[in-house]
C-alpha cells in the first residue's frame, strides 16, 4: 500500500461514486454504451484503487465475498439466464421478456440476467487476479 492519507481518503469517497457508476453502466448497457463487461471492470477499478490506497487486507475486508464465489455466481447467472428459454420450450438462450418498462434498464428480460452475470464474473476475475498478485507481494 501507499502511506498517503490523501490518496486513501480520496479512494474512500471515490469508491461509492465509481460503484454507482458501474451499476449505471451495467443497467443501461442494453441501450447505450456500457454493459456488464465495462460495468464490472469499473467496479473492479474501484476496488483496485481502494486496494492500492489502503492495502490488500483492507480491500479484502471491504469486499465481503471471495472473488472465486463471484466468478461462480457470474457463470451461474449466465447459465440461469438460459433456463427460462428451456422452460418456455424455446430455443436455448432465447430471450424471455417481461412486458414492463423501467427507466435506464428498459425492458427486463433473460439477456439482462446474462449481462448481470457478466458483470459479477468480470468483477470477480479482475479482483481474483489483482488480489492473488497482491498477496504474492506480501
Amino acid at each position, binding site marked *: 500500500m501507499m502511506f498517503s492519507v490523501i490518496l486513501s481518503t480520496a479512494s474512500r469517497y471515490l469508491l461509492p461514486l465509481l460503484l454507482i457508476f458501474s451499476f449505471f453502466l451495467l443497467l443501461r448497457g442494453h441501450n447505450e454504451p456500457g454493459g456488464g463487461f465495462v460495468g464490472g471492470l469499473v467496479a473492479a477499478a474501484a476496488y483496485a484503487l481502494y486496494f492500492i490506497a489502503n492495502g490488500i487486507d483492507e480491500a479484502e475486508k471491504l469486499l465481503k465475498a471471495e472473488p472465486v*464465489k463471484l*466468478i*461462480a455466481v457470474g457463470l*451461474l447467472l449466465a447459465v440461469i439466464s438460459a433456463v427460462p428459454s*428451456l422452460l418456455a420450450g*424455446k*430455443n*436455448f438462450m432465447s*430471450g424471455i421478456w417481461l412486458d414492463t418498462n423501467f427507466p435506464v434498464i428498459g425492458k427486463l428480460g433473460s439477456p439482462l440476467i446474462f449481462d448481470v452475470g457478466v458483470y459479477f464474473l468480470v468483477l470477480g476475475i479482475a479482483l481474483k487476479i489483482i488480489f492473488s498478485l497482491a498477496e504474492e507481494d506480501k
Partner: protein
Amino acid sequence: MNPLVIFPIILPLVFAVIMLLFWKKVPVHRYVNLAGSFISLVVSIIILEAVISDGIISLQIGGWEAPFGISIVADLLSTVMVVITAVIGFATALYSLGTMDEEREKYLYYPLLQLLLMGINGAFLTGDIFNLYVWFEVMLISSFVLLALGGRRGQLEGAIKYVTLNLLSSAIFLAAVGILYGIAGTLNMADLARKIPFLEQKELLTVVSILFMVAFGVKAAIFPLFFWLPASYHTPPVAVSAIFAGLLTKVGVYALIRFFTTIFIHDTAFTHNLLLISAALTMLTGVLGAAAQNDFRKILSFHIISQIGYMILGLALYSPLAIAGAIFYVIHHIIVKTNLFFVSGVVKKLKGSYSLKDVGGVYKYYPLLGLLFLIPALSLAGIPPLSGFWAKFVVIKAGLEIQEYFVVGIALLVGLLTLFSMTKIWNEVFWKDDPKGNENHLDESYRLISNYKKFMMITPIIFLALITIVIGLYAEPFFTFANNAANQLIDSSNYINSVLGMK
C-alpha cells in the same frame, strides 16, 4: 431441433460452477467430476443415437435464424467426436482419482478439466467460425492452466513454448476469420459452404484458406508446425498429458477436416496437395523424432505427430474412403494414445521414472500391465486385428486407389518404424530386467498408494483397452459409421439444408 445438442457444452460448465461454489472442498470436486463426466457420456451417446437415426441436428442459439444467430450443428462427425471426448473425459476422471496429487486437486484441477471439455465440445459442435475461435480459446486457456498447474520448472518451460506458439496460431486464426468475413460476409459454416461457390471475388479465398490451414495445423501439430507438442506434452501430470494427447490435437484435425471438406474445396489441387505433402512429412518427422527419444512420454508425444500425419493423409486424398479412413483413424487414435499415456503413468508410479534407461522388469512381475500396454501399442503400430490396423488399412487402400503410391510407401514405412518404437518401449520397460537388478524394485512412493487408487488407475486402462479390442474385432459398424460420416462431409448439401433449412 433437439435441445439436447447444447448440453455437451453447457453441462461441463454447470459442473465446473458447482465445484467452484464449493471451491475449497476437494471431495466434492472429485465426485462431481466423476458423476459429471459420466452424465456427459450418457448424454452424448443419446445425441449420437438421435443423429444416427434422424440425421443432422442443428440448433439455433437464441432462436435467431441462421446464419444470423449461432448454429450448433451435430452431424455424424461432430457427434462422434463429442462421444469420444466424453469417453476420454470419463476415463480421465477415473484415472485422475488414482493418480492426481492432492495439491493440484486443491488448486481447481477438476473444474479446469471440465472447462477444457466444454471448450473441446464447443469446438466440435459449433457451426460458426467465430464461435469456433471462441471455443478454441476456452480450450487453449484451460489447457495452458492444466499444463502449468504445479509450476515445476519443466512444466513452466514447456508451457512457455506451448502458450506462445498456440497464441500465435490463435492470432492467425482470428485474422483469418476477420478476412473471411471481409470476403464472404458471413460467419456461418453452412452459409459459407453455400455462398463460396457463387462468390465473385474468389481470388483471396485460397490465401485465407492457407491461413486457416496454418492456424489449425499448429493445433493439429502437423509438419512444420508441431514443435510446441514435444516440447510440452511430457511435462504435466500424466492424466493431463493423456487427455491432451488424446483430444487436443484432434480438435485441430477435426477443424481441418471440417474446413477442407465443407468450406474450402474450391481449389483442392492446391490446398489438398499441400496437405498431402505436409501429411507425408508429418508422418516421417514424427516417427523419426520418436526413434531418437528415450523417454516413455516423449516417444508417445512424437508418435502423436506421426499418427496425425495419417489422418491428414486421409483428408488430403479427399476421397470418401480416404476421409472415412481419416475419421476412423481419429476415433481409434484418441482411445489408444490416451491409454498409452495412462500406462506410462502406471509405470512411472511403479518404477519412479519415465526414462527407458532407468526402468525395466515390468513384464516379469506385471504381465497384465504388459498386456494392457501391448494392446494399444500394437494397435498404434497397426498390427491386426486391432483398431489401428483397420485405420491404416483403409487410408492405405484409399491411397492406392487414388494411385498416390509414394505417400502410401511412406505410410507403410512409418508403420514399420512405429512398430520399431513400440517394441523399443516394450523391450526397455517390460522385457529387460530392472537395471537395479532382476528382483522387483518398486518406487518407494508406490507403497504409499492405496488399493483404491491402484484400482482407479487400472480400471480406465482396461476400459480403453477393451474399446480398442472391440473396434478391432468388430470394426464393421465403426467403419460403416466413418463411411457415412465421410459421405456427409463430401456432400455438404445435407449439412447446409439442416442449418439453413429454416430460411
